[in-house]
């Protein structure tokens, strides 16, 4: 009851005129920043951090949290409409969101994404409200072996569940991981894999460089070549009645993915260093695994949009938990929020819930209000996003190229990275021709820098004994499930070979 009273007062604080205005502005700004390829919640929060000094700390954090929420909703927009995941958290949304848009069902994809994001955010808020201190302790029990096991599981979902050519899928994962290792060795600090001794590689290859190259350039070239210039425009339906029908269909065909993403995303999100990207990927994999029609995934399944979208929203709220309760940021954006809190004179950690009750519950209350505001604002803007798809393809295509190059530069501020994007784009075009799945490489470049140090730390802890991944109570079952998924195609192959004999 005490929690409900505190939450009620928090919501009232969030509904004060100034705070409500900040939520509406923050969500709208976040939505457009998130929808822009190359820009994500990190940019929005970092750029607008100085603005928050004009308002009280509670209003400031509410504003930044609203931007964060809006940006998480916005990530799906570029994935669906442009086919470019604006942030790593929205990569999995592209798998089914883009095919739906190509079928003229962008409205269904966007409505599904919005509803799933809302449900994911709400479930995360309820879990946050009810179990914050308890979950913080669970998160603390995740050491390097557990995090590495989780990363292994994320990759395993691709190998075990993908219908693609298995050697090509594994190649793609390893290629992404190797690209993620370019630059410096994180532990010794020595330069590593400086390809052709070009100094530009010293700074490493970021996720966006590969993602924009693959999706913004490679995928577009492939589409132009495949359609033989016959695609003039997509004509998605956009009427109030059509949107209502899409909402009904999204609820009917996307509920399972939403439920999986909401809970799994939150759990992965609360783990320091994991975050929304593995959460959204694993939710997609699990949704496909439990689906009665897994063959529809990758071809435009609403469940395939709902699972990662529910997960990335749920995980963004989840990543606030270790930040507030332990002072450990779960994502780059929460790291900036943490910095902001310190500047405003607040000390994140276990004492925050006791010493700054009004602030904490005002923030949690604002999560609920921001979530509702983000849903409504997002739904209101869907016609605008759909309108973009009605443009002739010969205008949309160069606009996507321009946004890819300008957005890519904006994210890295380096022309070397822009050239790399072009090279990756051309390479991706040829690899796509030969059925190499490229999404695993894009996700691997994000997860690699988390997976490698945790593997090395784990092996250091066990003096080189890999049994550490099997003997620990949390890491053990996760590793076993991951290995089963990795070897699943081999078991299937052996069974197929055996069955004609029997």
């Amino acid at each position, binding site marked *: 009851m005490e929690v409900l009273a505190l939450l009620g007062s928090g919501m009232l604080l969030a509904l004060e005129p100034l705070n409500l205005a900040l939520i509406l502005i923050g969500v709208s700004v976040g939505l457009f920043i998130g929808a822009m390829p190359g820009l994500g919640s990190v940019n929005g929060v970092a750029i607008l951090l100085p603005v928050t000094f004009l308002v009280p700390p509670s209003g400031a954090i509410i504003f930044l949290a609203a931007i964060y929420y809006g940006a998480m909703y916005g990530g799906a927009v570029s994935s669906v409409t442009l086919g470019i995941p604006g942030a790593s958290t929205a990569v999995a949304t592209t798998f089914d969101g883009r095919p739906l848009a190509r079928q003229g069902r962008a409205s269904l994809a966007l409505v599904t994404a919005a509803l799933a994001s809302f449900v994911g955010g709400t479930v995360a808020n309820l879990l946050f409200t009810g179990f914050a201190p308890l979950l913080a302790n669970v998160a603390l029990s995740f050491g390097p072996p557990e995090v590495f096991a989780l990363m292994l599981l994320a990759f395993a979902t691709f190998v075990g569940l993908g219908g693609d050519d298995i050697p090509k899928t594994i*190649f793609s994962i390893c290629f992404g991981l*190797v690209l993620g290792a370019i630059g410096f060795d994180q532990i010794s600090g020595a330069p*590593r894999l400086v390809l052709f001794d070009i100094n530009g590689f010293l700074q490493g290859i970021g996720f966006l460089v590969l993602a924009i190259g693959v999706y913004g350039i490679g995928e577009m070239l492939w589409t132009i070549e495949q359609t033989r210039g016959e695609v003039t425009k997509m004509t998605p339906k956009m009427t109030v009645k059509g949107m209502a029908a899409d909402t009904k269909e999204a609820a009917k065909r996307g509920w399972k993915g939403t439920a999986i993403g909401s809970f799994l995303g939150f759990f992965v999100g609360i783990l320091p260093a994991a975050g929304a990207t593995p959460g959204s990927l694993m939710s997609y994999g699990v949704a496909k695994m439990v689906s009665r029609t897994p063959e529809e995934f990758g071809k435009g399944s609403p469940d395939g949009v709902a699972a990662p979208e529910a997960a990335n929203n749920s995980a963004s709220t989840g990543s606030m938990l270790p930040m507030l309760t332990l002072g450990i940021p779960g994502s780059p954006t929460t790291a900036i929020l943490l910095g902001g809190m310190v500047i405003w004179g607040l000390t994140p950690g276990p004492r925050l819930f006791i010493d700054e009750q009004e602030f904490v519950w005002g923030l949690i209350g604002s999560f609920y209000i921001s979530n509702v505001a983000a849903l409504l604002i997002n739904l209101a803007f869907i016609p605008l996003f759909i309108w973009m798809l009605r443009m002739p393809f010969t*205008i949309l295509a*160069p606009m996507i190229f321009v946004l890819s190059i300008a957005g890519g530069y904006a994210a890295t501020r380096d022309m070397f990275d822009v050239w790399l994007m072009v090279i990756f784009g051309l390479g991706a075009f040829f690899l796509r021709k*030969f059925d190499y799945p490229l999404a695993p490489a894009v996700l691997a470049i994000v997860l690699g820098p988390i997976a490698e140090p945790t*593997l090395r730390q784990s092996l250091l802890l066990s003096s080189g004994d890999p049994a550490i991944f099997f003997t620990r109570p949390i890491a053990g079952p996760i590793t076993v499930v991951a290995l089963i998924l990795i070897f699943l195609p081999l078991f299937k192959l052996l069974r197929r070979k055996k069955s004609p004999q029997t």
Partner: protein
Amino acid sequence: MRLGEIVTAGVLALLSIYFMWKSSELPIGYISGTGPGGGAWPFWLSAIMLICCGMIAFNWWRGTSPPSQSEEPMLDAYGWRMLALVGGGIIVFVGLVSVISMYGAIAVFLLYYTRALGRHSWTVVLPLSFITPIAMFFFFEGAMRITMPTGMPFMDPIFDIGYEIIY
């Protein structure tokens, strides 16, 4: 397609070997007291890549993958032309960034694509090619405080006007 698949697998195998060689500049084994060497992670991953290339070649030989069963050319005349016009256009676009600035290059690229490839009328092409870079200038430089490449010195007077409006 059949020839293309094995050539691609061969190129990727060479790339894997190159990655293995570059990774081995750092220790690739387990070092007592410090854990796996700095080159171990990329080296062994590249080794898996090489094994995968071998498996892709084996599948090609067995003719189990769709590209290995296809006798169609990888790209026909239209495909090569498209690649030259669109892919080449993107390369020229990026090359122009350091000469006539990001915004100048955007204007030229949009003009080229919408007029030469899209065959749109000048009433569509001109406003699109000039309004887009101006809008992007105010978005990136003004709202987001992100400075894009300004090109060679002869572009400075144009940027001075823009910066005067923003600041």
